């Protein structure tokens, strides 16, 4: 046996032992959000541990939703792991399109997942998607501007407090806008926010008989308030600002206040990207005086496996890796505790290291304040706080979002926007057979 052959044999052996006999390549569809891009950068750790390779399909949120929905509805089978949200999970699980994740090993500690997240990602008591990160919404505000305006932000403010703060901080000559809110049309953009405002004013999307309720006085009051707040104290072009646009504005120091996802806290306090990193305070999402529902939402970006994939085992291993406690530790060791994916696990909030992070406590409090099973003051036939967990919602929400976006742009009045949204919603519900 020549030396060369021996070398070959040794190499082959090492390959087998390190990669294992079942090394596979899994295709993962994900959003181009910061935490996912970080995960993509850490793929090597997963490959080293399991031997599986990963193909990433990283897309902008709207493109991703469309691609993934199209693929799973037509049973295209192009992806082995999907990044989906709390809205899709129960609907898809109900259609038996997802693989149940109940059989993850004990070391994964599924009971450690925050109860609110677990409930939102389950269907009939089984977990169908593992939260990669979870969020509620809260107020992020500029402590320096509040001080300058001689105001203080209570920990649990009301909408009147928010309006007063917005008024006090606005300084349009210096391009400082008291409040930045979502205005960009989309069920996951402005409608997420507007729906929570509506909840906190005592409104609801549908009554117990699935009749759309946008023609009620509660909706009018909520939407008028939102419109007035944003057009009076908001930045120019607010009707096209979504999460990302507002984040950029806040980081540049142009927003006095921003009510949005709790995950944004780690971006606005990151000195590499944010010019106001050390001047940010946090408070609970507001409510209207006398209404005991706050405007918190609840959302998770989660990883799920489409039923029918050939690589279920490897896909499960990936989900286990990406949503584990070890993954959080890994990110913490490389990027610091402030940058770990938040809102998924109870143990993270018990970790003394993480408790030092300025926004940790408020994030947890916000998540715990949200209850998707009882989102509104009056009873509703649906679950979901900032969305309605029915298949038609994406279409309904986006169409309504476009009307409210045009309203913020000054192209129609509050009444016109509500009337059109109500008519369209009724149309869609009728088409769906309610």
């Amino acid at each position, binding site marked *: 046996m020549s030396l060369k052959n021996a070398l070959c044999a040794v190499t082959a052996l090492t390959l087998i032992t390190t990669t294992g006999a079942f090394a596979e390549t899994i295709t993962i*569809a994900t959003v181009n959000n910061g935490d996912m891009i970080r995960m993509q950068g850490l793929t090597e750790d997963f490959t080293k541990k399991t031997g599986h390779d990963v193909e990433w399909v990283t897309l902008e949120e709207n493109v991703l939703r469309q691609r993934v929905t199209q693929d799973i509805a037509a049973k295209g089978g192009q992806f082995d792991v999907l990044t989906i949200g709390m809205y899709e999970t129960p609907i898809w699980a109900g259609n038996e399109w997802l693989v149940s994740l109940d059989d993850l090993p004990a070391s994964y500690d599924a009971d450690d997942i925050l109860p609110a997240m677990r409930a939102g990602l389950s269907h009939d008591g089984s977990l169908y998607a593992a939260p990669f990160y979870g969020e509620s919404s809260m107020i992020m505000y500029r402590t320096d501007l509040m001080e300058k305006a001689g105001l203080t932000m209570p920990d649990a403010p009301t909408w009147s407090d928010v309006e007063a703060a917005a008024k006090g901080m606005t300084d349009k000559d210096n391009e400082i806008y008291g409040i930045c809110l979502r205005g960009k049309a989309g069920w996951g953009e402005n409608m997420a926010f507007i729906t929570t405002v509506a909840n906190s004013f005592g409104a609801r999307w549908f009554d117990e008989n699935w009749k759309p309720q946008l023609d009620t006085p509660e909706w009018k009051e909520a939407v008028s308030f939102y419109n007035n707040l944003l057009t009076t104290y908001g930045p120019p072009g607010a009707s096209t600002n979504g999460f990302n646009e507002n984040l950029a504005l806040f980081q540049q120091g142009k927003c006095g206040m921003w009510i949005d996802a709790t995950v944004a806290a780690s971006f606005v306090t990151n000195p590499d990207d944010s010019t106001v990193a050390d001047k940010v305070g946090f408070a609970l999402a507001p409510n209207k005086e006398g209404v005991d529902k706050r405007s918190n939402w609840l959302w998770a970006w989660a990883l799920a496996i489409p039923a029918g994939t050939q690589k279920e085992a490897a896909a499960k291993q990936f989900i286990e890796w990406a949503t584990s406690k070890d993954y959080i530790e890994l990110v913490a060791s490389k990027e610091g505790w402030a940058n770990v994916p938040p809102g998924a696990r109870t143990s993270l909030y018990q970790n003394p290291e993480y408790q030092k992070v300025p926004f940790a406590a408020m994030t947890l409090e916000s998540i715990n304040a949200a209850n998707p099973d009882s989102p509104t003051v009056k009873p509703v036939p649906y679950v979901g706080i900032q969305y309605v967990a029915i298949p038609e919602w994406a279409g309904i929400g986006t169409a309504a979002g476009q009307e409210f976006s045009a309203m913020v742009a000054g192209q129609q009045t509050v009444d016109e926007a509500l009337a059109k949204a109500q008519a369209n919603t009724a149309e869609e519900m009728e088409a769906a057979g309610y």
Partner: protein
Amino acid sequence: MARSVTTRRKTINTLAAWAIGLLIFFPILWTILTSFKTEAQAINDPPLFFFFDWTLENYAVVQERSNYMRYLWNSVIIAGGSTVLGLIIAVPAAWSMAFVPSKRTKDILMWMLSTKMLPAVGVLYPIYLVFIELGLLDTRVGLTIVLMLINLPIIVWMLYTYFKEIPGEILEAARMDGATLKEEILYILTPMAIPGIASTLLLNIILAWNEAFWTLNLTAAKAAPLTAFIASYSSPEGLFYAKLSAASTMAIAPILILGWFSQKQLVRGLTFGAVK
């Protein structure tokens, strides 16, 4: 006297044309410039033109995040493949239409063009189901075929109008001299048709390269071309102008360079029979 007038006119023409040319080109120039800035410089007020610290950082970030070469290679294969395949099918068809026209030739041409009017979003679902049946999802072969089919009418039409301009007398003369059909095609028609074919080839590579609906919807990872690459850089979290610019520059640079170098060939045949 006459000379000075022409010089003055020429100067005015030159100034006007350059001003308009630069104006039209400016968005691309601005994208390229921005790709060399930091994210903070990219949104600086007032905007920075040439005097900033040029950095390659964005290109490094983009390259680290996505395997650019693979997207590029897929784009090359798909755009090139669909064009070549399209030409193989279209040349004989256009040829026979131009040289053996019948009463229905024009109708067939117009019908072919009308197939391009099928709205892609409307037939996405059917095509997706067909692709699943045939196992063509996320394959370069599948995408090559689709792009070939959507551009085929344009290819046929462009070639047809070009072939039609080849004077018939030359062919007759060759036939008189006893040339066989093969010789006729090889030695007389082909050399005359090359510019038209070249320009058709270029136009279709450009159209296929920039096609952004089917390429995005029928691919996942393996066959994804540059149009999918761009979709991961549009509006991420935080500041992104510089990275978006770098990714955009990387996506359009190959085709821009190809287009510039071959613009003479492209222009020569791009008449669609507009010139008599």
